């Protein structure tokens, strides 16, 4: 029986990107459906009635929601290829811890860096950089967060790397100047086809954020 896999997503979403990359790593064929978040489809509302958000993975009619839950589901379902989480429980716990850290810190801080001005933005920038440095120290001198191989934690953060250009332009600072290893990591990930084919162009993303800011009346 052929697997039916659909991903309900929104192209600028860093959470959706996690799922795209995970599916690509596993070589899973799927149907991509871009949602209009200002006019959510009946399918979206039916598949995620609790949160009404993307991304949603629909596998043979059954929905899985929340990006990190989806990535683990992908890893466990298509387990024959490209394991995303390490095999030892401690390594897995570390990866989950840092993925949770990324979720708790970067989305809200990034939004503030991109969407606010003045003191609020400066405060957000400061904490954002602190958090980036903490994450960078977890990378150490390894090529990927997973060590020698690209994996779960790399997938968890790569969508935010795609937004670095936006954060830099909006916040008027250079991420490479403060976290060169992290930027080098991002470039290294982009060399992988599963990543480069799943992520939008950073400049296009910046353009989108500018449009949103304009529509919201933010300078």
């Amino acid at each position, binding site marked *: 029986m052929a697997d039916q896999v659909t991903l309900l997503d929104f192209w600028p979403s860093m959470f959706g990107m996690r799922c795209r990359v995970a599916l690509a790593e596993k070589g899973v064929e799927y149907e991509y459906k871009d949602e209009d978040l200002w006019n959510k489809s009946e399918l979206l509302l039916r598949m995620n009635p609790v949160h009404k958000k993307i991304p949603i993975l629909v596998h043979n009619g059954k929905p*899985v929601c929340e990006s990190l839950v989806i990535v683990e589901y992908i890893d466990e379902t298509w387990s024959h290829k490209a394991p995303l989480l390490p095999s030892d429980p*401690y390594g897995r716990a570390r990866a989950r811890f840092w993925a949770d850290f990324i979720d708790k810190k970067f989305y809200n801080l990034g939004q503030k860096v991109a969407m606010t001005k003045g003191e609020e933005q400066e405060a957000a920038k400061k904490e954002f950089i602190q958090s980036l440095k903490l994450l960078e120290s977890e990378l150490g001198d390894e090529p990927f967060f997973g060590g020698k191989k690209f994996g779960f934690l790399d997938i968890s953060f790569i969508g935010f790397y795609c937004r670095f250009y936006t954060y830099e332009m909006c916040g008027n600072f250079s991420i490479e100047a403060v976290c060169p290893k992290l930027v080098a990591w991002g470039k290294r990930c982009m060399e992988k086809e599963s990543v480069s084919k799943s992520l939008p162009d950073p400049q296009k993303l910046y353009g989108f954020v500018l449009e949103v800011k304009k529509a919201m009346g933010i300078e």
Partner: protein
Amino acid sequence: MGEELKLLGVWGSPYSRRVEIALKLKGVKYEYSEEDIFHNKSASLLKYNPVHKKVPVLVHNGKPIVESQVILEYIDETWKDNPILPRDPYERAMARFWAKFVDEKCAPALWKSLMGAGPEREKAHEEAHELLNTLEGELKGKKFFGGESVGFVDIMANFVGYWVGVLEEAVGVDVLTEDKFPVLCKWAEEFRNCPVIKENLPPRDRMVAYFRDQRETITTFYKNKA
């Protein structure tokens, strides 16, 4: 084999009690160390959890694991008897989804609706009702979220199962009422009566007094953390 297992926790914290439930369900022996989380965090805590400086922290052969949901998964993967998570990937995804819902949505809204003040509390009260409705819907037809026995989601929902009742008594406000949430209330009673869980619940009188007296400290502490 010299296995060293230590848990840094706080007696009244649902988060550290979750870890204790999981370890006890698996029959795993551990050393417990009580932290003075509000006034005097230990050197161990700061060393093992430098990022968040919170409990619980599980230290296994010198290696720390933090964040209760992460710790629960670690325990399940390391000690395979009496599994907490289901085996099927889809069922596991559902368990992780609902655990996150309970922890990240329900618990904060319930806390604010009981320990908060003013308009923020009103708003949280409404939100809590909606969320509890959703939870009630998910539970229908099952004894526990995990099915016939306590599982991952039940453990993660310990705040709803026990702490909510305690806070309601401490502040004199009702949220989880039987007329509105009959299924959840029945679940909460079954949960509290489970042998391993029953033995592990922090004493109710002490908790009610604690939350009553400490309301000021806790509310300020969490206000500053938010």
